[in-house]
């Protein structure tokens, strides 16, 4: 507990430094990842991250120390080699791009592992620190590392800000970008370089293996909340930041634990929450909407049945008994129950000793539903080449969907008809 408070108060300057560094790294990776995600190249990012390992090991082999700039250089070199290899394989062989990605990923990683183990067996100095690239370890970063990586992360964010418009256009519609004269080739190189760099600095905190999560998961999560790129980038950055914070926290509590898995757990948790809770596209929102739709259908079906009852009655009394009402339409009992409740709540029916009548507004509503049903039948018979006996099912459901604007258009198109194809009158306002 004490440690938690220690951490959260940010009193310790090393804690502050580590947190700031990890958060910044995660943010820049998450933001760059959005572009990879939108270009549907999320898994290329995964392959890239794995492919950086030989470069990192090589840099270490030549310098004998963990100099951040040298490691970045090594990562750049092997990242570009991997990208080039993927492109060559795709262009000159019949292998699918998928296969090319998996091939480059596994071979480069295998080579990296070979070099890493070689270093462990032969190298002097603090080669043990190289392991952290596999799963990341935020706490073990030194301040000089943090400054270097933090700087790169800042530069990436600034570049994205500067070329925001161009990048956006390119990601959403490369052909259009080319057509209006944007240097698409240059933009592609820029994005690739940024992905390599973001991956190179990101592996400090999550490691090579789980880097894909830092690129993909925040972007996918943000997408649930917004379709606007600006908002999406911001939200992805926020998700990355929260995960970075969580990761460094875990690392602070248990220094032996790798940071990467914890960051990924936080990211995945955020994604899971979004999948269920996001407005409009979230699973709960969809279930709620479906429930609302169903309620609307039930209540309007009851109104329609009542209207039919009124049409079929003898004389013109406004009250119908429940059996009279229910015989108009065969619906399961539970639907009647829900429907009654709904109609009462909307104040569309009145009840008197087992008999019901529609209120003014209820009647108008019933008329509207019946009108839409009959209009749609007419529309179907006129435009969809449907026989008379096939009209009814198509008009069910659509009658509940049509909005006043569409209704107006429908009326205009059908020229304010008087009768439906079955010669039933179409009820208008009066």
């Amino acid at each position, binding site marked *: 507990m004490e440690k938690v408070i220690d951490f959260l108060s940010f009193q310790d300057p090393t804690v502050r430094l580590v947190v700031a560094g990890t958060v910044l790294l995660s943010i820049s990776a998450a933001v760059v990842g959005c572009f990879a995600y939108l270009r549907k190249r999320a898994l290329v990012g995964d392959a890239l991250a794995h492919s950086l390992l030989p470069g990192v090991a090589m840099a270490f082999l030549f310098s004998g120390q963990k100099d951040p700039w040298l490691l970045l250089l090594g990562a750049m070199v092997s990242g570009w080699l991997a990208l080039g290899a993927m492109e060559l394989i795709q262009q000159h062989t019949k292998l699918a791009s998928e296969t090319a990605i998996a091939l480059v990923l596994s071979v480069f990683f295998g080579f990296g592992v070979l070099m890493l183990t070689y270093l462990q067996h032969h190298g002097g100095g603090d080669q043990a620190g190289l392991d952290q690239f596999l799963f990341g370890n935020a706490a073990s970063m030194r301040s000089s590392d943090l400054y270097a990586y933090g700087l790169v992360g800042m530069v990436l964010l600034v570049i994205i800000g500067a070329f925001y418009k161009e990048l956006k256009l390119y990601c959403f519609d490369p052909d259009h970008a080319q057509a209006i004269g944007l240097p698409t080739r240059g933009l592609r190189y820029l994005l690739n370089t940024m992905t390599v760099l973001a991956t190179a600095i990101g592996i400090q905190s999550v490691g090579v293996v789980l880097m894909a999560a830092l690129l993909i998961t925040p972007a996918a999560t943000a997408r649930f909340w917004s379709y606007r790129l600006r908002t999406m980038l911001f939200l992805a950055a926020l998700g990355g930041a929260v995960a970075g914070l969580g990761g460094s926290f875990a690392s602070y509590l248990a220094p032996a634990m790798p940071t990467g898995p914890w960051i990924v757990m936080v990211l995945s948790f955020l994604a899971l929450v979004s999948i269920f809770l996001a407005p409009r596209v979230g699973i709960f929102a969809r279930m709620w909407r479906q429930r609302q*739709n169903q309620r609307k259908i039930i209540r309007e079906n009851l109104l329609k049945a009542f209207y039919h009852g009124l049409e079929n009655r003898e004389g013109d009394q406004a009250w119908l008994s429940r059996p009279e009402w229910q015989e108009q339409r065969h619906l399961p009992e539970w639907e009647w129950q829900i429907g009654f409740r709904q109609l009462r709540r909307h104040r569309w029916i009145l009840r008197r000793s087992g008999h019901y009548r529609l209120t003014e507004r209820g009647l108008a509503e019933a008329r509207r539903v019946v009108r839409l049903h009959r209009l749609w039948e007419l529309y179907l018979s006129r*435009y969809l080449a449907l026989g008379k006996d*096939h009209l009814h099912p198509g008009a069910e*459901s659509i009658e509940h*969907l049509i909005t006043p604007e569409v209704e107006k258009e429908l009326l205009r198109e059908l020229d304010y008809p008087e009768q439906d194809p079955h010669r*039933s009158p179409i009820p208008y306002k009066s």
Partner: protein
Amino acid sequence: MSANKEATPALEVHNLTATYDRQPVLWDIDFSLPEGSLAGILGPNGSGKTTLLRNIMGLMQPDSGYVRLLGQDLAKVRAQVSYVPQRESVDWNFPVSVSEVVAMGRYGPGKLLRRLRRPDRDIIEEAMEKTGILPLAHRHISQLSGGQQQRVFIARALAQQAQIYLMDEPFVGVDAATEEAILNLLGEMKDRGQTVIMVHHDLQTAQDYFDQAVLLQTRLVAAGPVETVLNKENLQQAYGGRLNVLSKVGQLAAEKQFPLREKAFRERKKPAHGEGD
């Protein structure tokens, strides 16, 4: 429905509605085709031709409505129905030879474990001979021209020895000789009383090729004998753009994720005719 009371139609599509992401691509399609017809499914791009075929073949679950082939559910008559997908739907680098692809026509759910028997081999050879690809039998499929690739698919369909053939744009990207050869084959099949239904996009040739036509524009514009379907008014309707109201309602349905059919009216299986108003 009244015209062909004497025989079961080869294909009967009943109030079929299909959606992608809740956006309707086929609205209440309802028509039937008599046995022994050579029918074209026509319509502009994006009018749902391929979707209709996929629904007929059970590769997509319709939102509502059902399909009858030879008066039965597809599951019951599957062996009588052959499907020829679009040529682009496969990777032509896949390591199989021409004869191996044609042999797939003799596979089936119960026949995956055993080797093909002599009669099967004979059927496969005959199918290749009929389509003129027997000399290519051992070639790899990537070494074929577009026309030859299409012939391979047709041969595979012939090897199924079905009653109904559903083809998705078999004339796209093929040479004139192949088109001619395929047409002759189709004519022979028709004479044997088999039914061929194909998605076709060339209106110019439709009049000559088919005796029945189905004109689509997400909805059914017209279906029936080709000369009555392909009149100016129908073509105007099919190619003169979408119906305003229909596409708006479609958008609404997608937006509000509204079901296009109430549960009680989906009748995917049993044709329980409920007459209403």
